[in-house]
């Protein structure tokens, strides 16, 4: 059963068409990796899913709810679709543990003790149990991003959206984040990942989307695509990235 359903979605910023009549559905358990040149619309594609961007035409259903619905529909979608940002966006006045517990308490209405227990177990999952009392500015970028992943997981979403989660990190810090993402994937989480990490796309992804100029040009099995990219534009793109 599909959890994300794009029905001829068009997104424009002013006169510029960012997404052009995209139709596509994503099933539970899929690890969809989205690649493409900058400005191709891949971040917008992701941000439309949790209604951080509003769509101009078509419809987009997340777990059966339309992103064009009421404010409470949109909040429901956002609770079910956790998001990890390029810039982490942790709350600077809260410790790692408080950051992770925050959403569980405020959004899921969990009791304090329960939320902190959940937060503790999630920090353990992202291998940061020992940094739980540190504030974001006391953590490295890679650690901050792992806290951000735990913070999203705390809402128990059905889908996780990753918006270039490693692009703001040094190469050596990327691996720890990708490693955690791989572990999340292995637990069966449905994921949509916008990334430039081709190894992750190949090894972890179950489906690869190549977006260019607002169109999905390639939608295929990543292993097959990387072995033999038959689309000339994708081949050109990959040769630049690798």
């Amino acid at each position, binding site marked *: 059963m599909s959890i994300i359903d794009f029905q001829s979605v068009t997104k424009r910023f002013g006169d510029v068409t960012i997404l052009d009549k995209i139709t596509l559905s994503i099933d539970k358990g899929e690890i969809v990796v989205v690649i493409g040149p900058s400005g191709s619309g891949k971040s917008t594609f992701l941000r439309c899913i949790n209604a951080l961007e509003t769509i101009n035409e078509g419809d987009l259903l997340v777990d059966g709810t339309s992103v064009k619905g009421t404010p409470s529909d949109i909040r429901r979608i*956002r609770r079910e679709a*956790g998001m990890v*940002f390029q810039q982490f*966006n942790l709350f*600077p*006045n809260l410790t790692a543990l408080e950051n992770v517990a925050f959403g569980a308490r*405020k*959004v899921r209405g969990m009791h304090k003790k329960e939320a902190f227990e959940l937060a503790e177990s999630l920090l353990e999952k992202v291998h940061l149990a020992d940094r739980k009392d540190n504030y974001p*500015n006391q953590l490295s970028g890679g650690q901050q991003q792992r806290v951000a992943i735990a913070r999203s997981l705390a*809402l128990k979403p059905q889908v996780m959206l990753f918006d270039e989660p490693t692009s703001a990190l040094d190469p050596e810090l990327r691996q720890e984040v990708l490693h955690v993402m791989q572990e999340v994937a292995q637990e069966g989480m449905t994921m949509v990942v916008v990334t430039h990490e081709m190894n992750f796309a190949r090894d972890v992804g179950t489906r690869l989307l190549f977006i260019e100029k607002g169109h999905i040009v390639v939608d295929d099995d990543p292993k097959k695509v990387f072995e033999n990219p038959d689309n000339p534009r994708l081949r050109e793109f990959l040769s630049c990235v690798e």
Partner: protein
Amino acid sequence: MTFDWSVVFDSMPALLKGAGVTLEIAGIGLAGGLLLGVLLGLVRAYAPKVFNAIALVYIEIIRGTPIIVQVMFIYFAIPIMTGTRVDAMVAAIFAIVINSSAYIAELVRGAFLALPKGLTEAGLAMGMPFWQVLLSILAPVAVRRLIPPLGNQFITSLKDTSLFTVISVAELTRTGQEIMATNFKAVEVWSAIAVLYLIMTGFLSAILRLTERKMRIL
């Protein structure tokens, strides 16, 4: 000349009473100014254009006129326009409320708009309504950043109360003038008044510095 301490001691009870009035005007006035200022600042930062424009006009009018004109207007002009007498103390407090609110509004607007956009997005992406993002994510960070500039405004407003001598409110400066008028001991009286103001502003600075240290400015 010799500094006559007995003048200071003799006038101290009256001066302390005046300082009490100063604190009352500043305290109540700033509490009101803070409330109104936060409201106006949030309207400036987030409300639809019409409300934003109304707030902007208010702020420009208040910031663009001297506080002494404002208090004169409240005390002398409003009674003529409305036919009801305004108590001098009420006029003084009201003047601090409207005057400080205009400056505080701009501080609040700046503090909120300077926050990284990602914080709002992180909150919204969790499925929180905007008011909750504002209250539980943005406000705690903004408040920390607001403390130093708010401290400035509090001290400025406290000292501005000395201008209300023009409407004969018995605050510290007015009390001093009255004592001066009877004994002509300018050096002693004005020194004592200056020290009393310094104690009040110093105390305010200390409280603010303590809060800052407790809160980790982010």
